[in-house]
């Protein structure tokens, strides 16, 4: 008897069919992986189960009994707990309060003692990896992204639900945190609990999963035993009849980019989260930033771009020295910055695609009027280069899937070519084919002479695309990997070296 059966679940948002036919069967005591490209409907399926999305159709059986889930509360009552991809934390509350938020101990009054001791149980699970500043009393708002993700994990664990969903719980975690988390999942599995696990990282899926269900275009296309399948097969299922592109399939970069005059030079650069950073990027070079996440890579890129303050350093772009002030000035100077966090830094929600793709153009061309037809001419090539799929420039960007939204955001930087492109984990949460498109374009841009800095949290992306890799640790560059040194082994070793 299966623990959970979801059959024919469907959900439309206006004209967007988020889920056509979601099927999922989960056994007790298994980690069941959901995989599918961006916007394929994984989160939607999970949210239907967790009660926060109202399905249009379909049925749900738990322990073979049909259940009707009317909201998050009723889902909890049916034994479902969830980690939300976008987190569901109260920023001004403490870690302990957040962990216990779904059901606070006590009646009219909060039972503080019970709350603390319950929270402590889950905090203790991650004691070794939760990092500095993490405690039951810490205010969530003051925590780092990975620590917040840990809180959301603890919150999901604290539901002690027989079926627990983890929708991309590891996207901000480092390896040690992921390892710890997986150990806990294994314990839960052993205790007979059912886990639904979503990740875009193939290695994680094969490390922790028992079975995998693939969703494509809102439809469940198959379920495999992890033991009986391999990444290639999973990817084939995900992409269906379309081109097959695996992460490693791209051509390796030129051994040594012609070391022309550097287009961007950074030296003795200091700022919040990094110190004394220096490097050069040549025209046509793809410089990689590597290392564990949060070691200053992103901070350096944002500071160069003027998005966060820096204190001191000499920066030279195309021969002229500058001090970062704000993105506006950086853009005028010919810098471009693509953030992986598109919903925070990129997408202008609810506005037409045209308005989302033109702001940099407006600024660089000093435009005052927005003439749609003239703009369309300028915009189309950039969108085509990324194989962006869209119905028309007048449509809202919300009508696109996440991956296509990110392409729009990237395209805005390409209408007027920048001298240097700063890529800050640009593929976070993007599916494989979109990644392939993006990297093909990046290499082309480099070939055309653009200087590119690429930070990626995925090692494969760096190894496959960067001409040179600077490995960050503790806010400083610890090692430079060039040519044949660019191996996974060297990368890990440098990253894990004590600072």
């Amino acid at each position: 008897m299966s623990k959970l059966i979801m059959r024919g679940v469907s959900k439309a948002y206006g004209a967007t069919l988020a889920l056509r036919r979601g099927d999922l069967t989960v056994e007790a005591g298994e980690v069941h992986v959901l995989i599918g490209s961006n916007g394929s409907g994984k989160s939607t399926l999970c949210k239907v189960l967790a009660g926060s999305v109202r399905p249009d159709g379909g049925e749900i059986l738990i322990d073979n009994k049909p259940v009707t889930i009317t909201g998050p509360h009723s889902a909890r009552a049916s034994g479902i707990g969830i980690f939300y991809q976008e987190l569901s934390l109260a920023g001004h509350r403490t870690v302990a309060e957040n962990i216990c938020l779904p059901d606070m101990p006590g009646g009219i009054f909060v039972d503080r003692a019970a709350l603390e001791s319950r929270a402590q149980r889950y905090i203790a699970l991650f004691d070794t990896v939760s990092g500095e500043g993490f405690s039951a009393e810490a205010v969530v708002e003051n925590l780092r992204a990975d620590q917040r993700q840990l809180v959301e994990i603890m919150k999901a664990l604290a539901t002690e639900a027989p079926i627990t969903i983890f929708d991309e719980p590891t996207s901000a975690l480092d390896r040690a945190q992921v390892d710890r988390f997986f150990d806990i999942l294994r314990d839960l599995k052993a205790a007979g609990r059912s886990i639904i696990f979503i990740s875009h990282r193939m290695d994680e899926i094969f490390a922790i999963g028992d079975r995998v269900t693939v969703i494509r275009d809102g439809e469940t296309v198959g379920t495999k035993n992890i033991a009986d399948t391999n990444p290639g097969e999973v990817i084939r299922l995900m992409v269906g009849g379309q081109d097959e592109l695996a992460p490693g399939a791209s051509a390796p970069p030129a051994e040594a980019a012609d070391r022309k005059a550097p287009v961007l030079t950074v030296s003795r650069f200091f700022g919040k989260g990094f110190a004394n950073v220096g490097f050069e990027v040549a025209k046509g070079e793809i410089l990689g930033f590597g290392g564990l996440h949060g070691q200053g890579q992103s901070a350096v890129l944002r500071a160069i771009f003027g998005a966060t303050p820096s204190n001191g350093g000499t920066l030279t772009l195309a021969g002229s020295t500058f001090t970062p002030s704000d993105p506006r000035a950086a853009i005028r100077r010919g810098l471009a910055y693509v953030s992986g966090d598109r919903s925070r830094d990129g997408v202008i929600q609810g506005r037409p695609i045209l308005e989302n793709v033109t702001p940099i153009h407006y600024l660089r061309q000093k435009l005052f009027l927005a003439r749609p037809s003239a703009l369309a001419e300028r915009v189309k090539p950039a969108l085509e280069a990324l194989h962006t799929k869209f119905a028309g420039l007048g449509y809202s960007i919300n009508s696109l899937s996440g991956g296509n939204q990110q392409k729009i955001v990237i395209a805005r930087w390409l209408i007027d070519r920048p001298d240097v492109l700063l890529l800050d984990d640009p593929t976070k949460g993007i599916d494989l084919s979109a990644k392939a498109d993006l990297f093909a374009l990046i290499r082309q841009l480099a070939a055309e002479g653009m200087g590119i800095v690429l930070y990626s949290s995925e090692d494969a992306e760096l190894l496959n695309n960067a001409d040179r890799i600077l490995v960050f640790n503790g806010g400083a560059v610890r090692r430079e990997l060039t040519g044949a040194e660019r191996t996974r082994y060297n990368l890990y070793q440098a990253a894990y070296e004590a600072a």
Partner: protein
Amino acid sequence: MTAATQTPAAAPSPVLTFLKQPLVVALTLIAALLLLGEALSPGFASGQQILRLLIVAALLGIVAAGQNLVILGGREGIDLSVGGVVSLSAIIGGNLMNGADSGILPAILGCIAAGAVIGLFNGLGVTLLRIPPLVMTLGMLGVLQGLLVVIRNGIPSGRAAPGLSQFVTQPFLFGLPGIIWLWVAIGLLMAFMLGRTVFGHRIYAIGSNEQAAFMAGVPVKRTRIALFMLSGAFAAVAGMCLIGYSGSSFANVGEQYMLPSIIAVVFGGTPLSGGKGGYTGTMAGAVLLVVLQSILTTVHIDESGRQMVFGATLLILMLFYGRGRAMRA
């Protein structure tokens, strides 16, 4: 391959989509209220009366233009100081004109400058000091009310120039008073600005996602300051028109525009969360509100009854508009 999965679901009928537009909702409600008014007191929906209502609506609508911009700019944008600016501008304008047509131009310039300066202060407080707009403009309202007392003690409340009164109340072109043409012009200007200028796109950008706009080189602070300045300027123009309407300036003439200007914006389909909406709807919203108010003045019931009916009707009308998203999608 791309990740695009959106496939048109059964497309909602175009008729229904049309009917759900805030502008259409407002216009329909206006028509219904006019019919109701006519039924309750014959003559209510006569051409002359409608024209007079439009003059009053134009006053509110011009204030609402600035309010609309500030709200569109997001970050809980709202301008509670507009009422104070209207009053102040009426006084400044009245004194600069003091009954002479030659004073109209200096008055207009003076008022707009004063309104813009007040807006500048609001904008600086909101952007540089990051005071929430509600707080900043509420505080500013208190300051302006105090300023009014000082000014009114020091200088006489002036009178409108005859030319201005003519412009506001008498037929100007094709039988319509000048203020209505002014309002139409403002409407066209707003539509052009919001839809066809980079500045307009930037307003939506900061209203929808300020951080993304910042990263895309939008001068967030400058744009937002400009919105508050425009709001002050529009309120000042309304103050000028108001003194043209009533002939002389006095007391807190503007107080009655503060919250109604916000309601006009909401009735026009611009939610208070910003980044969405436009001015055409707001114009209809202003007319709707004014028609409703004047129906209530003409119905012979006690003040208590009037207020209860007005409050309840506002609530019912709000149900037609941007109700917040359901928690459960």
